[in-house]
């Protein structure tokens, strides 16, 4: 008997107490936790900005008209002149003095590792937890792009910010069914492995900056 058949038979025997007619949906899962946040939009966006900042990520909330100047200032402050730019990111977001590193043809891991930073958009932001979610679609690039560079600048539109985790999972359902990889990012990489104190900056980007367009 194959390992698969053995394991399935063991499980079948172990579940003798489960009536044969029972269907999975007969085991009720009460979803009476909060499914949506009814707070005003402005409050939700403000909470998002505050909670991202609590993870020691720099957050700036700006008007669309000031976006490029804000991006330019952020990059200048870090002395960045060459930036990894994923396909599909609005060209208008790029400051004129920045040299873009395009991923076509794909950049090597070494090129990404030695790059100065990366700019991406995102799929959505979760206010409750201060989380950015990438579905690696247009403007976000494949997973390595937002991983190997030591600096990640992420642009979030206020309209992309939702209140609670269940709202986010609902909006990501289509991407998940399409088999797209998803990355949830809450602050820069961190560890709590030394005396359980959180230290920012381990293997992922050590610096995360977020610009919210309102």
């Amino acid at each position, binding site marked *: 008997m194959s390992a698969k058949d053995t394991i399935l038979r063991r499980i079948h025997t*172990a579940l003798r107490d*489960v009536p044969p007619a029972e269907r*999975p949906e007969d085991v009720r*899962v*009460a979803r009476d936790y909060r499914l949506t946040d009814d707070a005003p939009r402005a409050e939700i966006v403000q909470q998002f900005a505050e909670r991202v900042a609590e993870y020691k990520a720099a957050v700036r909330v700006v008007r669309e008209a000031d976006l490029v100047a804000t991006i330019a200032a952020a990059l200048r402050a870090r002395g960045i002149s060459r930036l990894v730019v994923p396909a599909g990111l609005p060209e208008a977001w790029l400051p004129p003095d920045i040299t873009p590193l395009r991923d076509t043809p794909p950049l090597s891991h070494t090129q990404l590792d030695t790059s100065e930073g990366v700019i991406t958009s995102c799929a959505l932001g979760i206010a409750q937890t201060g989380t950015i979610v990438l579905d*690696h679609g247009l403007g976000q690039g494949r997973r390595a792009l937002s991983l190997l560079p030591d600096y990640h600048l992420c642009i979030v539109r206020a309209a992309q910010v939702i209140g609670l985790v269940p709202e986010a999972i609902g909006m990501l359902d289509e991407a998940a069914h399409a088999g797209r*990889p998803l990355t949830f990012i809450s602050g820069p990489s961190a560890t709590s*492995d*030394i005396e359980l104190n959180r230290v920012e900056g381990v293997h*992922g980007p050590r610096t995360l900056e977020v610009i919210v367009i309102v």
Partner: protein
Amino acid sequence: MLFVLFVVKKVRIVKPQSVLIELQPLFEKNAPKALANTQLRRNMGKATQTIRGKRAAVVDEMPDWEALREAGRAIKARTLRHLDSYLLQLEDSVTRAGGSVHWARDAAEANAIITRLVQQQAREVIKIKSLTTDEIKLNAALADAGITAIETDLAELIIQLAGEHSSHILVPAIHKNRAEIRELFMRTLGVAELSDEPTALAAVARTYLREKFLTTRVAISGANFAVAETGTVCVVESEGNGRMCLTLPDLLISVMGIEKVIPSFQDFEVMLQLLPRSSTGERMNPYTSLWRGVTPGDGPQEFHLVLLDNGRSDVLADTVGRQTLNCIRCSACLNICPIYERTGGHAYGSVYPGPIGAILTPQLVGVEHARSLPFASTLCGACYDVCPVKINIPEVLVHLRGEVVRQQQDTGGLRAALEPENLAMTALAKLFESRLAYEAAQQAGKLGQLPLKHDGHISWLPGLLGGWTAMRDLEAMPDETFREWWAKRKAEG
């Protein structure tokens, strides 16, 4: 920013010795040694206090925490009661997305599958912290095949470099303080100058491992969840070492216990709220990666998922013990446990320490191989209160204590039959069988206690019974028993 002088030196990876689930964890033998180690107790006390405070803060801000816990429990109950169909659905979803699914009856079979897959491509693998791979002693099996496994989680790296075992399921090096870690890194990684600031220590790990991430072609991970409906596999982490391993290599092998499957993608809306808050005490952990099979042009182009039984179907068969498989490995029960806080994890002699380990280990390996663990608890119930998927740990502990006694009676032969406790319980059972015998014993007790009784209490008992009175007084038997009072009351009408 702190700069460290960093000299890359050939690193000595200590070969892991029999990595956990020792055959006979003897908690009562290990615990006194741990308790005598004052440095350990100080480290553990400080760490568990910190994490308890963080968890309490982020749980208290959730008005719907109890509803989430109940949903978490129900999702796992649904999964476990229909585990076979969910596993088949998961296999189908992953296979259709270009992944391969393997089934392993036990540790040896899982190790053989993984070793075979690695051998075709590499002599070195990078690993994401995974309890399941600790349970099956994968690193030792790979080493036997000449393959070096490099742990990339900071705490796992620390204990690998120290040649030690994990003492906590989330923070394996919780028993070590910063000064000890600094000393270890200077000795094993050839760092000439290093402060004991956690930032500096983390920077050392980053520099050492970055080269490994960029050059190693095979990665091995566990899995926090896998969705039957979509084939989505999930790894929850903090440092980014997980993302590195899941993204950069050509070949990815993920090992998961069969109980880690969840029915639908929607179930993440519960699990991704329960796990980080219970685990590290954060609203959300820094990184959560979800992927399905192979994504063309992004990440490993070969993906294998190993489904491991290794005793889990036995746990499933026990209708009381089944809830143990709800566990999402958050470690909240370790951090809250008064026993764990004082002994640390090594005393449990298992890859799964603390309250969850005290119920999971005996069920996975058989109670006869872990008799002392169900007794490593005061049954205070704090673990049940904090469990995000509502595992009634005290209930399972009591159930397993019964199993231990029954197993000893069944197989212990004459020696077990002559154990004082067994003799006492057998005698007691006889007394309770007959009303006359019981009432006679009550009269004998009332007479017998006379020389020992002072002010309604007994402070000293002879022989083996003295174990009870060594630490506390015993309430003396009353002058009139309930039965006598009842009979008198009836007679008086």
